[in-house]
């Protein structure tokens, strides 16, 4: 859009408060997973709102909202664990496998789970 825009952003708020909706790719993926799982009927949107609300209400939430998707992810993990869809210990183990895979992947190459030195056949 090149023409001058008549609309005005919230100019009086501190800089950075009007940032793009996703700051990092994992935030977009975490967002989309919730939408996809809801589409499959694995939880109602009310259940999701309740789970998210419980996370964002915890003390220590940042006033600038930068940790919003961290709460989003915690809510998703909690909901999946409570429904028996992804147990906490399995997520922990898989996350460590991904971290090892990242370390073992030469710079510039895509990170694949198979690059994890402890990689075994898919469970």
């Amino acid at each position, binding site marked *: 859009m090149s023409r001058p825009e*008549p609309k005005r952003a919230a*100019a009086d708020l501190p800089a950075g408060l009007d940032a793009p909706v996703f700051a990092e790719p994992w935030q977009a993926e975490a967002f989309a997973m919730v939408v996809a799982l809801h589409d499959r009927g694995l939880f109602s949107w009310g259940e999701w709102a309740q789970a998210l609300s419980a996370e964002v209400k915890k003390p220590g939430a940042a006033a600038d909202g930068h940790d919003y998707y961290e709460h989003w*992810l915690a809510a998703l993990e909690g909901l999946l664990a409570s429904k028996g869809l992804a147990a906490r210990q399995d997520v922990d183990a898989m996350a460590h496998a991904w971290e090892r895979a990242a370390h073992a992947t030469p710079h510039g190459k895509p990170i694949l789970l198979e690059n994890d030195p402890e990689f075994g056949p898919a469970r």
Partner: protein
Amino acid sequence: MSHDHDHDNELDPFAARVRALETILTRKGLIDPAAIDVIVDTYETKIGPRNGARVVAKAWHDPDFADWLRRDATAAIESLSYTGRQGEHMQAVFNTEDTHNLVVCTLCSCYPWSVLGLPPVWYKAPPYRSRAVIDPRGVLEEFGLTLPAETKIRVWDSTAELRYLVVPLRPEGTDGWSEEQLAELVSRDAMIGTARAGQPA
């Protein structure tokens, strides 16, 4: 390459956990990675406040549509093919000379995605969520919107089931404008209630 080191790769803990969830859920057949990409693309590029601006402009332009929007916003908005994914109901709240409407979600971050896209960061942050209800006039002033003391402010608290769209006052001097021209005056913030519609240049 713009990475801060050059020997190996690093996943931050959140990225690693998201990948872990994707792996586990994909192996169980509960998600399809290609579908995840489509959802991200849709929300990043296709759904946004231009949708809501078209709804507002149509309501300004077409009294019958405005009446429908007032009575049954869910159906009126769906008639423009903007459909909510969460089965939520929509309510349109019309600003008048006497009353200004402001939308918040004190619970978490419920927001009319189908017409406004995803919420701005400040909408999801604790200060707005707590203060919009307690001190709406003060919050609006921080957005640069000072309302006359006699204007009432009505705050609408969104839920998972019911989301609100503010229909701002149509600016003066726009008689005879087309819907497309009118839509250009309608910002995201005007449809949340933290701004007025733009003025004709």
